């Protein structure tokens, strides 16, 4: 005789495994969505009023000039053309890719710092309720501070740091600013995760007469993984955004933020060029967020329960 309590696999497993055909359809539709968006762009550009639609003093539909809305194919073609007419000038896509890689490295450093700080704060807040009450409101508030206000301060302060042979580099200022955006989701998500174990699990550890550290290692940290992963994904996207903003703000060379403003400055004469780094920034953000998915599959045994993170 066989009996089943709660027949069928639990939803966590059911939803994660997709038949390959379904998966393919999903990708196909995603591509279709992008094609539809591109078609809408071109269609509007073709049919829309050249000065956009102005209602009650506000332009609610954009202008269709080549300056405002270059053709999609122009943007794509521009990517394969050299950056400038100078000899040995690299194709735009390569220039963007090189800059994106540099930014990715800085963002990764910022992400790591954000991770360490965020998890550290979460541990402190989990350990002491009073710390949670005292810190959490400020952590939330910290994200309403316009980051750009900080950039010069951070760079200037960093410039003074010189410990032994260690000298503060400008990219570190950028990474630090990136970490400022990255730490927030990590702190909040990890705290939620560390607090997620059921009372029954916490009490079980108590019956085993083990202390806070062992409970942390064996129970709270593993239980926090499902909360940590989305937080890390958000942190990765935020780190990239923060790194780009900080590059713009501090004028750091070599990254995508730098060419973003540089090409924006050239957009009057070469409107398609400015879109190169925009696409680069999107791809970069997606790559950063996507790499967390890899981490997620490594830790999949810790994600056997799906949570509302």
């Amino acid at each position, binding site marked *: 005789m066989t009996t089943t309590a709660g027949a069928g696999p639990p939803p966590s497993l059911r939803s994660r495994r997709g038949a390959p055909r379904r998966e393919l359809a999903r990708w196909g539709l995603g591509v279709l969505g992008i094609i539809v*968006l591109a078609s809408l762009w071109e269609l509007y550009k073709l049919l829309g009023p050249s000065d956009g639609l102005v209602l009650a003093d506000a332009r609610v539909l954009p202008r269709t000039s080549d300056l405002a809305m270059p053709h999609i194919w122009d943007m794509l073609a521009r990517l394969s053309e050299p950056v400038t007419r100078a000899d040995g000038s690299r194709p735009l896509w390569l220039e963007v890719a090189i800059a994106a890689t540099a930014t990715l490295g800085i963002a990764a450093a910022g992400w790591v710092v954000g991770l360490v700080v965020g998890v550290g704060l979460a541990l402190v807040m989990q350990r002491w309720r009073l710390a949670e009450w005292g810190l959490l409101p400020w952590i939330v508030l910290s994200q309403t501070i316009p980051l750009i206000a900080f950039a010069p301060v951070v760079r200037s302060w960093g410039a003074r740091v010189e410990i032994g042979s260690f000298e503060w580099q400008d990219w570190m200022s950028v990474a630090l600013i990136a970490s400022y955006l990255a730490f927030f989701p990590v702190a909040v998500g990890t705290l939620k995760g560390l607090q997620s174990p059921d009372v029954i699990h916490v009490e079980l550890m108590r019956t085993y007469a083990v202390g806070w550290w062992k409970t942390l290692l064996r129970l709270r940290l593993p239980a926090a993984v499902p909360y940590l992963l989305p937080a890390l994904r958000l942190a990765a996207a935020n780190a990239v955004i923060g790194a780009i903003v900080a590059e713009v703000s501090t004028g750091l060379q070599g990254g995508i933020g730098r060419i973003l403003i540089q090409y924006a400055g050239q957009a009057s004469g070469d409107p398609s060029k*400015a879109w190169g780094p925009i696409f680069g920034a999107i791809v970069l953000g997606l790559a950063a967020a996507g790499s967390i998915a890899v981490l997620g599959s490594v830790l999949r045994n810790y994600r056997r329960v799906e949570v509302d993170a």
Partner: protein
Amino acid sequence: MTVARRPGAGAARVLAPIVVGAVVLGLWQLVVTVGGVDDYLLPRPAAILAVVAEIAPSMLSAGAITGLNALLGLVVGAAIGILAALAASSIRVIDNMIAPIVTALAVIPIVALAPVLNTMFGADSQFGRQAVAGLAAFVPVFINTLRGLRQTLPVHRDLMRAYAAGSSQVMRAVTLPTAAPFVFTGIRIASSLAVISALVAEYFGGPRGGLGGLISTSAASSAYARAWAYVLAAIVLGLAFYLATLAIERLALRRRS
């Protein structure tokens, strides 16, 4: 079992953040005053407060400009987010089609978008900033609403079918109320994002007068105390948005456990 809340916990809850804030401010003041840190770049809190008193009217009017941009962006972005989520939740194809676009929107930095939007919508209007705020607000509202619309319990769905309820009845009686807390969470996240996005967008052109423009102008002329005063106004604005959405949420959901 839940730990019984000790009496006095409420007071600690309110006092703790105030104490932390006071300690940080005190340390800041101490470092700048005594610690030998140059107060050229980092003015002491007292100096900032003095400036606040001086330029309060300008902070208010600038806050109003930025706040209005953020508010319009938030309202429109949230509305579009909710509608798009409704469409995505009821039509799977739409869901799959907009998924990559939303994912891209979620990772795109405002710096990249602001100049383009200014050209598209005109640098002489606030619309570019409102659009930036709207885009920033759209993403969390869409994601959370969509999740909320999928929370309908099977037992409620069965019940509605047993009542032979029409799809609009199901939407009104079950789906929307179930999604409501998620929608509000999305709006709450969006509120701070809208403010900060509207503000940062001011760095990239358009009419003057908003908080972002004033922060940059003040910093450019080395008036750091003034810059920090406007930063303070920005924080207060962000906080006001957050608290307002929180209050609306509490009010709307007061009958939930």
